């Protein structure tokens, strides 16, 4: 963590399986055992029907860019000065949920709405893997 020097997730009882899945390069999301709705972020109860029953399913890892920003002024400055410009996007997975991520392997100004993207797992250190997305090849 000290070597990485950027914000890192603090897994909790709800999210631990998600982050463990990322370590194994699997994008796991919850599917309600009662109503079948998929959800993100992870939560103990289904926000649609209230059921605690759920399965972790492996998402396809494919989706589309719902919205995005290009960070050009780093905040906090000392942490992100070397990274700008970078893209943060909300990606809508084919399964229907949206998650925040970075779009990589793409010029920030080539981003387009609804651009098809696929997950790529970034092993940032020995304990943390962040799912990021890159444009899906034509």
């Amino acid at each position, binding site marked *: 963590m000290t070597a990485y020097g950027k914000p*890192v997730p603090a897994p909790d009882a709800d999210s631990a399986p998600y982050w463990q899945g990322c370590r194994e390069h699997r994008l796991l999301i919850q599917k309600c055992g009662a109503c079948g709705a998929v959800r993100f972020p992870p939560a103990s109860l289904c926000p649609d029907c209230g059921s605690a029953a759920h399965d972790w399913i492996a998402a396809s890892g494919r989706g589309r860019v719902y*919205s995005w*920003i290009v960070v050009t002024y780093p*905040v906090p400055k000392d*942490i992100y000065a070397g*990274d700008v410009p970078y893209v943060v996007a909300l990606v809508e997975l084919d399964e229907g949920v949206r998650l*925040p991520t970075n779009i990589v392997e793409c010029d920030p100004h080539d981003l387009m709405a609804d651009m098809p993207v696929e997950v790529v797992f970034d092993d940032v250190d020995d304990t943390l893997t962040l799912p990021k997305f890159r444009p899906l090849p034509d």
Partner: protein
Amino acid sequence: MWRLRDKYAIAGVGYTAFSARSSVTVRDLALEACGGAMADAGLMPADIDGVVSFHFNDSVPAMAVATGLGLPGARYAIDYQAGGNAANLIVQTAAMAIEAGLATNILCYRAMNGRSGFRLGGGRELAAHGVTQYTAPYGWISYPQAMAMWCRRHMIEYGTTSEQLGAVAVTCRRNAALNDRAMQRQPITLDDHQASRMIVEPFHLLDICLETDGACAVLVTSAERARDLARTPVYIMGAAYGGGPNQGDDLFDAMRWPDHSHNYARYIADDLWASAGIGPDDVDVAEIYDCFTYSVIMQLEGLGFCAPGEGGAFVQAGRIDRDGALPVNTHGGLLSEAYIHGLNHVVEAVEQLRGQAGARQVDGAEIALTTAGAMTCGGAMVLRN
């Protein structure tokens, strides 16, 4: 729905100087603004029995003001852990507390050393807990970065342009030039907006509000008492607070928000206008929460001043100018007057309705709208003289 139409009033306003470095404590800022509102109403500490505020742990709590002003016995002193979404809600809360018999004269304030002290846009801890664990690790951290995501979605849906955002910035600055207390008074052009540094696309620097050391306060009391006090009462006609489904686990979080091309305003509009008994066409002046240029456009659409997607054209056509159909942010707003988290909009509305706005007075202003909020939740009021 708000059922207290015209039963409560704002009877006093107070404020400090707005600066980048106050050189005093937040407590002193709060006391100065609250003392000002109390004196403006012609009241003494013995008359005040309630205090309400909101903050992000960047201020002093209401009990500190009760103690600092020497109130003989505050019967209602409460703080919201909240951002700009609560800047109108505290006024509503004061009226509700008086209606319930909990107090008679209540001070509402927001005080912060927002530039020299705790800066809201600054950053977060390295260990990202709760919903922040899904955002901060991607360098998605500041409020400008949060709101830019919404703005982009509006651009995708409706073709809203950066030049249309710029029209809001230029309008606010033009109004601020007439306002002695505004922090930024030198005029800007659309070219200045376009040439200003890109902070987080699609936002330029001039799309983003100021950071301010300062405070504002208002004194809320019953309409009956207000009529016996020093100033022309400003009545609370209508009020609403809320948002849609999935408002998130904190103000930043909107992962499950249904559609980022509209915000809370759409969900409170019906209650707001029904509670006031008027509609958008009846508003003479509108002080609209402008933490970013874009939030003005989204609230104009959500509250029904124009259709969804037409907000960009609405602001570009000059309708929000001082001499337009709907003068907006006559004080300069958060973009050019000061960032007192939206309570300065309430103060400005009161001064407009009293006819005390000096060079920036909108002639014949009788009904004002104030709003507070930009993303999943917020509130608004309709005020009249």
